[in-house]
């Protein structure tokens, strides 16, 4: 009898798992999330994307146009976003596209959408600062703050599945994210962590100094040959920061972004993209540079950029 039992057990036996956890293991391996997914549409999307791979620009533009309607004007972002994310929030009409090696920026027509309707499940659950329940949210209302019924300030709303993230939760998330981030404050050691040469600007606006670099840890908690370096320069008096991302120029780090206003400029003899009049993206030394000039403005941002050699 015993032997039969044993044999039966071996059939579903998961390799590399201790006996005591076999039940749990089989529950886990029996979960098939793919059943509920749109397999065909994933296949078709992928097929389409590889078929027009030869012409990169066309590919990008097609991709964006297809994504259809959106609430882009409510996203104030002049930012290079993961293609995934961007595709989700894009886009109306494309006015202008500037493409450098591994960066593409797209300027969209400013669509007139000035308000967003809340999902039904959230109607009545989101209040303005005077505790009136909201059905729609406009930029102004949002700027003044929106709240849950319990009076907690809302950080963001996930429209897709109708969930609310409060500021408190956002803070916790931020904390959790820090565990996976390595902060380095000695600017002379940065190249130990990257697969490319991290270059620092020799010019910084008055009062700003290098504050820290951040790297994302890998599964084993280390940072080695990172393709990304995130640099922060801080004005200790005002507490304001300049953010820069440097990344190794390759397929993996290729990115695409949207902005209300893009313009081609020149940084040390190479083409660069100035977006929203203050952020600069350019590629040089096999590195893609992104400088966010929010706190310093266009002229200073360009000076900082040109000092990276």
């Amino acid at each position, binding site marked *: 009898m015993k032997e039969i039992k044993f044999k039966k057990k071996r059939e579903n036996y998961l390799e590399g798992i201790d006996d005591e956890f076999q039940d749990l293991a089989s529950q886990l391996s029996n979960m098939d999330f793919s059943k509920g997914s749109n397999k065909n549409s994933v296949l078709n999307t992928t097929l389409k994307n590889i078929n027009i791979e030869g012409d990169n620009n066309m590919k990008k533009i097609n991709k964006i146009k297809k994504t259809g309607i959106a609430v882009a004007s409510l996203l104030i972002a002049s930012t290079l976003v993961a293609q995934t994310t961007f595709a989700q929030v894009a886009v109306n009409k494309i006015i202008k596209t500037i493409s450098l090696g591994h960066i593409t920026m797209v300027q969209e027509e400013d669509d007139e959408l000035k308000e967003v309707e809340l999902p039904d499940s959230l109607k009545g659950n989101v209040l303005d600062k005077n505790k009136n329940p909201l059905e729609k949210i406009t930029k102004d209302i949002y700027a003044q703050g929106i709240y849950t019924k319990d009076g907690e300030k809302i950080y963001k709303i996930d429209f897709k599945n109708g969930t609310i993230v409060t500021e408190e939760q956002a803070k916790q998330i931020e904390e959790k*994210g820090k565990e996976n981030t390595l902060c380095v404050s000695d600017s002379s050691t940065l190249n130990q962590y990257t697969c490319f040469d991290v270059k620092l600007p020799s010019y910084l606006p008055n009062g700003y100094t290098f504050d820290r670099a951040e790297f994302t840890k890998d599964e084993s908690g280390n940072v080695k040959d990172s393709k990304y370096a995130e640099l922060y320069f801080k004005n200790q008096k005002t507490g304001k920061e300049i953010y820069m991302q440097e990344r190794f120029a390759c397929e993996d780090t290729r990115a695409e972004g949207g902005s209300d206003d893009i313009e081609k400029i020149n940084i040390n003899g190479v083409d660069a993209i100035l977006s929203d009049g203050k952020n600069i993206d350019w590629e040089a030394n096999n590195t893609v540079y992104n400088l966010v000039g929010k706190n310093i403005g266009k002229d200073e941002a360009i000076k900082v950029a040109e000092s990276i050699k």
Partner: protein
Amino acid sequence: MGPVTVVDFAHQNEKINENIDKQEEFTEIFLLYYKRVYNYTYYRVNSQEVSEDLTSQIFERIMINLNTYIKEKSKFEVWMFAIARNTINDYFRKQKRYKIISIDSILDLVSKDKGPEDLMINKEKNNKLMNALNVLDAKERNIIAYKFGANLKNTEIAKILNISESNVGVKLHRIMKRLKNEMEKEAK
């Protein structure tokens, strides 16, 4: 569900009707591995929309880089799930980057994205197991995703993560123990 699947790449070099071949070849690989890639991704991001998007990106990268796959160097699964891992890590990284910007801007109203952080919040309420999974950190979750989503063997996981097989075993033991405890806690 046998974890070993063999794909015949021999016809890869034939130039006749290359495009049709490629499409067929791709579809073949896609159909063979879709479930494993998708489940691996879902275990990590816990969102259907994001999983579909990333799964498509992963297969795109696999196909674009297929000519760089060297049979002698590694098993196809190891190569493929290393690509999957990188694609998802890039996604998380970019999400993080996106977050930095959006905290600065006054509006982040229409964010449809579900980053790793939302795993914490969007718990699938009726599923004890999924709840229990949410106590794991990103690294632990990745190992679970490799083991049960991608259906990889410990030795394959070890190769991708560049650690020893026994180390994978130890990690798995620890994670399973945590999961089990968590589920027993919830059951009370």
